[in-house]
């Protein structure tokens, strides 16, 4: 492997980092407030579809991203209402969103036309920024910035303290005059927006098309990253990059004839998942999650 190949692998890692990290940051916000949403995969999938259609309809890539973001926020609102005011079961709601997305997106793609996939025209895809050694999507910068902004928001502002109070001890937060359900609903919508942006990134930016399995498990990887990060958005950024790196690296080296002679490609292909497992297994145990995570708040 030549040294100049390190740059493309670096850029592949950055681009793979974006959807996982954005979704993980979103999940971090709502888990901090006590909402456990395993519907990331489904929310990303639906937003990837609406983002692609939005880009075409508005004739602009940014328009597509905003449509995807709004779709995510709307799904976040639904998830939030069910699990705050209606005291629903968060796990079941999350599973429901995932199942809905699988059926909905496949159904829509069939109805949009025979091929079962949908291509986003080149001129309404996000333009990459050329950097000499490679080209990078502007969403990479947005993702990095978002990690710092959310870290600051959760750890340095009063709103962050309120969010965490609602997640740790909703009864005490209620006594202190914080509306538990309103805060949780707000975090669900904000989280949904980030998850929706992650989904739209897949179709409007990274792949330039939407297929019925475009997320390919990234929503679940994002959940693993959240566990690893212990609800720290900066660690989520790092985790997203590590997974993106190993995923891209494994695919990359599998094309090298010489490497194939030494290591069977199956082992190389396993690398990203083994690394994720090791990282999560190493992190679990020391990570502490909010006490009221996953429990609907009932005022007594």
């Amino acid at each position: 492997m030549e040294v100049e190949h390190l740059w493309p692998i670096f850029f592949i890692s950055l681009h793979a980092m974006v959807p996982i990290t954005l979704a993980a940051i979103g999940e971090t916000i709502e888990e901090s407030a006590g909402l456990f949403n395993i519907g990331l995969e489904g929310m990303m999938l639906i937003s990837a579809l609406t983002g692609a259609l939005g880009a075409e309809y508005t004739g602009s890539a940014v328009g597509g991203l905003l449509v995807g973001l709004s779709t995510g926020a709307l799904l976040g609102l639904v998830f939030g209402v069910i699990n705050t005011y209606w005291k629903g079961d968060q796990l079941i709601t999350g599973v429901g969103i995932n199942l809905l997305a699988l059926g909905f997106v496949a159904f829509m793609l069939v109805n949009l036309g025979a091929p079962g996939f949908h291509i986003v025209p080149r001129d309404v895809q996000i333009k990459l920024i050329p950097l000499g050694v490679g080209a990078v999507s502007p969403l990479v910068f947005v993702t990095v910035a978002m990690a710092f902004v959310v870290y600051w928001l959760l750890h340095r502002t009063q709103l962050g303290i309120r969010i965490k109070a609602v997640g740790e001890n909703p009864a005490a937060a209620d006594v202190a005059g914080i509306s538990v359900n309103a805060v949780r609903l707000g975090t669900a919508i904000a989280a949904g927006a980030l998850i929706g942006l992650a989904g739209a990134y897949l179709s409007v930016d990274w792949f330039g098309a939407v297929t019925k399995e475009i997320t390919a498990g990234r929503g679940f990887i994002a959940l693993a990253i959240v566990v690893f990060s212990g609800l720290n958005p900066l660690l989520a950024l790092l985790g997203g990059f590590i997974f993106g790196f190993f995923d891209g690296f494994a695919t990359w080296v599998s094309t090298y004839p010489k490497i194939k002679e030494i290591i069977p490609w199956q082992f190389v292909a396993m690398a990203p998942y083994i690394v994720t497992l090791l990282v999560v297994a190493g992190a679990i145990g020391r990570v502490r999650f909010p006490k009221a995570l996953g429990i609907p708040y009932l005022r007594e």
Partner: protein
Amino acid sequence: MRIFRNKVAVLLIALFALVAGPFLGTAVAGGKIALVTDLGGRGDLSFNDMGFKGADEAAAKFDLELVTIQSNSGTDYLPNLQNAARTGDFDIIVGVGFLLADAMAEVADQFPDQNFAIIDVTWLGKPNLMEIGYEENKGSALVGALGAMVAAHNGYDKIGAVLGIEIPVLYKFEAGYRYGMHWGNAKYAEVTGKKADVGLLWSYTGTFSDIAKGKAATEAMLAQGAGLVYNVAGPLGIGDLEAITEHLEAKGRSAGPPFMIGVDANQDWMGDGHRVLASMMKRVDFGVYSAVESVVNGTFEGGVIILGPNNGGIAMSGKQDLADFIDFGIGGGAISESDRGRITDNWVAMRAAVPGWIWDAVDELAAKIGSGEVVIPCGWCADTIDQIRADYPD
């Protein structure tokens, strides 16, 4: 308690919808046919979609009702086939794909009076089962030869293949492509007098759904000097093509080289007509259509049917195919009618930029394969692929 009862009721209704849903449909005058898809299901850009296309065309032509039954996991194959057979309503039940083989063998025995057909399987041997296999190795040899000669002509010394999950059917693609590449190298040297030493970069990505792996593998191959990449992983071709498009854009160009080679369906129309050099078409639609037609004509019988270059089951894409699949693309909303002229012009210009002798050479190879003068390895080579890799090295 009442809440619990309600929950049970809701669950039962949901269960009923899940089980019965696939079978609900409106009755029409003629008979009924069923298409059972594999895991990939509709929208795989590959044999499931092509299988549906064939069944759909047959249903329209012969005034039949088509019921598509989607399999969501490997455990669905047997119950899906059994449920369809048990109704006794279907003139024929078609299973799409290698993955249904075991379930199909069992169901064909259980329901001896039911007509079945299966794609990509040729070893079950049941009197009521039509088994349809394809000579992907032959088609892949054609695009491999084309790829090697075009790459050499354009000054590249590598061609790539991005493959999906490592299953025996894909060995046929790989083996044929390898053979074709070596044939193309020899032909290039013979015609131009210059030594051609185009090598192969290949990767089994282990997926038929994660487009990122297709894109990353293609970027890796382009960085190592690949002049084109053969997509043997259905939807991953979207990622392959995206990588090629970005690679070209970075150089301020739109047209290849480097190119992609499409698979199964005709994908020449993608990439604005000038980034997909050719497609190795595996006409699953043709196979499904013929199976249905045989039932309608009363000529259905069990046994193996091999579709290949000689009978239109396998072909390298030509201009008429491009026109057909532009319609397909317009129907799918992927492109619009106003793109037709530009895509066709781009495609014609792309093909014209390749010297005529290369196209003649590909035709020559096709003729030799047809006459049996050239034998492409791997009719089925699950056991011998390692030997083929040694005989036709990277």
